[in-house]
């Protein structure tokens, strides 16, 4: 049984990459560290368990990264996806520090590999973890154990007791038993609130019941809510989240990356009213996949259907759940519970609007529609080669943007504008400082590692003085 009478130097709340980066850094600096991870050991690691890479600045090719990726290009990429909703100081600091992130993780036992098949577009910018995020999480827990860090699984932090901006202890549920952890500093790395359906309902109403949560079901936002209620500044739009087009047959939580569908650019997408609602071929998929979750979330019953034919099948990665197949568009509509006549008309109108061109799956080709609303700007091939295929789509939420405001030393900011004396944050719980909207592949892990290390360093420094 853990010693709950002891006063720990650092309490880390959460158990993903951001939490472990913080805990390991603090322990290496000589602090006594305790981790409170809500999940049981088999499901530990938060959303990090489902990740596969991190985005890292590098001036020259490394073992696993090709060419170079400089600060200005990185910053431009971030500026583009966030539409300016970022903090340039924090963002540039993170970008610069990201060059050391792979080395830190390697020292923690994480093994890197060149980019996976189908992800060549990321081979220059993103370092992939061999075996994916769970292998990273395993390696980091092993390192944490070696450093003598006390790790509590099945341990939910219910409340952080804050007095005058100073955290003194945490009220926890340890394997269902109420306990307290006393500590000299707290690092909150407990993620967003995307798995808290009640909270999502505040902004989205009944639609929230149809959102699939791609990652950990333990992202309940308890610590986030608790800190925001105690005079810590908030950052990010609470109604916003990162979401992708998931298979509608995926589990309601923890389905992970394999549930996402890449078929949209090679299909036409209709909602339950059998209406197209957005340009499926607007841009290459790596630049568009992240808007489709939100688009589908705005449709009736948060459902959509990607319709294609047998030509398209090999243009995208295979899906876990097979597409529905039918010999005619009408039969396909019936199988999907859609109006057959209407779907036949939508497909016929689309086919009539396609213009001759040379189809090129991987890049922006010249196959576009003419006179169709909304248009399909690329990859607009006729859908006329049976069997016809359909993938049912639902929004899959990755994380929420609401967070606690932090400064460049990872200290959370109080409502009076001053940094907290001993509360730090890293990971998704503060990612909204840098990512106000949109997403860059692998940037969440970068923020987690960079701010985790800063938080661990600062917390250890604090307790030494």
């Amino acid at each position, binding site marked *: 049984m853990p010693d709950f009478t002891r006063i720990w130097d650092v309490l880390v709340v959460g158990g993903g990459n951001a939490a472990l980066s913080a805990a390991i850094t603090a322990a290496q600096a000589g602090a006594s560290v305790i981790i409170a991870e809500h999940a049981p050991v*088999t*499901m530990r690691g938060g959303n990090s*368990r*489902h990740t*596969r890479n991190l985005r890292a600045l590098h001036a020259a090719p490394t073992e696993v990264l090709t060419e170079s990726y400089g600060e200005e290009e990185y910053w431009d990429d971030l500026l583009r996806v966030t539409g300016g909703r970022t903090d340039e100081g924090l963002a540039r600091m993170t970008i610069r520090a990201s060059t050391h992130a792979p080395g830190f993780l390697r020292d923690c036992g994480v*093994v890197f*590999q*060149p980019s*996976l*098949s*189908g992800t060549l577009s990321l081979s220059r910018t993103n370092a*992939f973890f*061999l*075996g*994916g*995020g*769970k*292998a990273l999480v*395993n*390696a980091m827990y*092993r390192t944490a154990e070696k450093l003598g860090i006390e790790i509590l699984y099945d341990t939910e932090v219910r409340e952080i007791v804050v007095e005058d901006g100073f955290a003194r202890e945490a009220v926890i549920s340890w394997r269902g038993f109420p306990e307290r952890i006393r500590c000299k500093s707290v690092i909150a790395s407990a993620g967003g609130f995307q798995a808290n359906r009640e909270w999502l309902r505040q902004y989205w109403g009944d639609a929230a019941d149809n959102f699939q949560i791609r990652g950990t079901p333990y992202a309940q936002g308890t610590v986030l809510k608790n800190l925001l209620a105690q005079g810590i500044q908030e950052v990010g739009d609470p109604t916003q989240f990162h979401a992708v087009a998931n298979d509608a047959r995926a*589990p309601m939580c*923890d389905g*992970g*990356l*394999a*549930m996402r569908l890449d078929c949209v650019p090679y299909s036409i997408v209709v909602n339950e009213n059998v209406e197209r609602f957005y340009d499926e071929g607007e841009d290459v998929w790596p630049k568009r996949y992240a808007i489709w979750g939100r688009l589908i979330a705005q449709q009736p019953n948060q459902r959509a259907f990607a319709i294609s034919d047998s030509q398209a*099948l*090999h243009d995208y*990665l*295979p*899906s*876990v759940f*097979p597409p529905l197949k039918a010999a005619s568009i009408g039969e396909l509509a019936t199988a999907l519970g859609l109006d057959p006549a209407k779907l036949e008309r939508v497909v016929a109108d689309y086919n009539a609007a396609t213009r001759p061109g040379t189809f090129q799956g991987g890049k922006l080709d010249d196959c576009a529609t003419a006179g169709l609303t909304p248009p399909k700007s690329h990859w607009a091939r006729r859908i006329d080669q049976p069997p016809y295929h359909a993938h049912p789509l639902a929004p899959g939420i990755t994380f929420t943007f609401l967070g606690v405001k932090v400064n460049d030393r990872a200290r959370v900011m109080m409502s009076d504008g001053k940094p907290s004396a001993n509360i730090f944050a890293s990971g998704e719980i503060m990612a909204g400082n840098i990512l106000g909207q949109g997403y860059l592949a692998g940037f969440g892990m970068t923020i987690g590692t960079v701010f985790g290390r800063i938080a661990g360093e600062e917390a250890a420094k604090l307790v030494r003085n």
Partner: protein
Amino acid sequence: MSETESVSHSDASLEAKRQMEICNACRYCEGYCAVFPAMALRRDFAAGDLTHLANLCHGCKGCYHSCQYAPPHAFGVNIPATFATLRAEGYATHAWPAGLGALFARSGTIVTLVAVLAPVLALLLAMALHDPATLYTAQTGTGAFFRIVPYWLMMVLAGGSFGYALLAMGMGAARYWRATGQRAPGPAPVAEAAFDILTLRNLGGGGHGCNDIDDRFTMHKRWLHQAMFGGFMLCFAATTTGAIYHNVFGWKSPHEFLSVPVQLGFWGGIGMLIGTSGLLWLKVRTDPGPVAPALLGGEYAMLALLWLIAATGLLLLGIRHTGAMGVMLALHLGLVIGFFLVMPYSKMVHGVYRGLALLRNAQERRA
């Protein structure tokens, strides 16, 4: 793959298909071994494809410990255990003669029975052949062993059982090759497959080893298997050299300790003892999650049989100048002959099918 003949899926095959369809949409494990790049070449998984992928799997368990969908996740992806079950099914399907494939279902019992009965029968035979005065007194000098078991009988029993093992496993290999619809390989794929077999590259986990015990990466399994395999081959070389000495040069055993056959056998025996002991230790210690429990019996029994063969061989060397030699020789020969007889219906066939899978993989990579 269209070239694969269509065979209906068994339950194990359907389960492997379900899991491969999840893996093929995820692909995080691509860096571990040959299985996942081979999987990525496919969209549909016919029964023959799955048998091939299962035999390509070396059981390093890296994919299990890094799997976001491993139990207790609802998807319950467990490739090492699922593929091990499917492999065992394939061993039974391709066994020759076909009726004996059923022996795989009771591999632990069968191997154990043979390991017990064969040396007992050998002892009884030795006792029946000689009066106790010969069997229990020290036999030394040229031809000492053949005063316990006559040379012709040794050749008939050992050569016959070994020949049968080769024939049965060869027939199994031919059936497997036909069932997976393969064409004759060129020299480059053969060289690549041979390299993969000899180095056990696929137990390297992308350069960092296997998850032998838990999520730690170690080279234990790879080196222990190498010790066992190398030891086995040295012992085989020892026997072959001994036979050449006898038949070509007329030099009869026992040979000097520093002679070629004894040295080969001695170091081979040491390698086998280290390898089998270590692999048994790994089996006891390993996380049971990615293990197929139904197959453990046969695996333990075969490792134990190999251990006994090595141990009795070394003991025979140690006490060959004493009155215990006769009994030890009978035991050792009994174990070896029993091993050859049971070999085509045991875990030992994994080497054949793994080799063919590596060969097919080397061909596919060039296609």
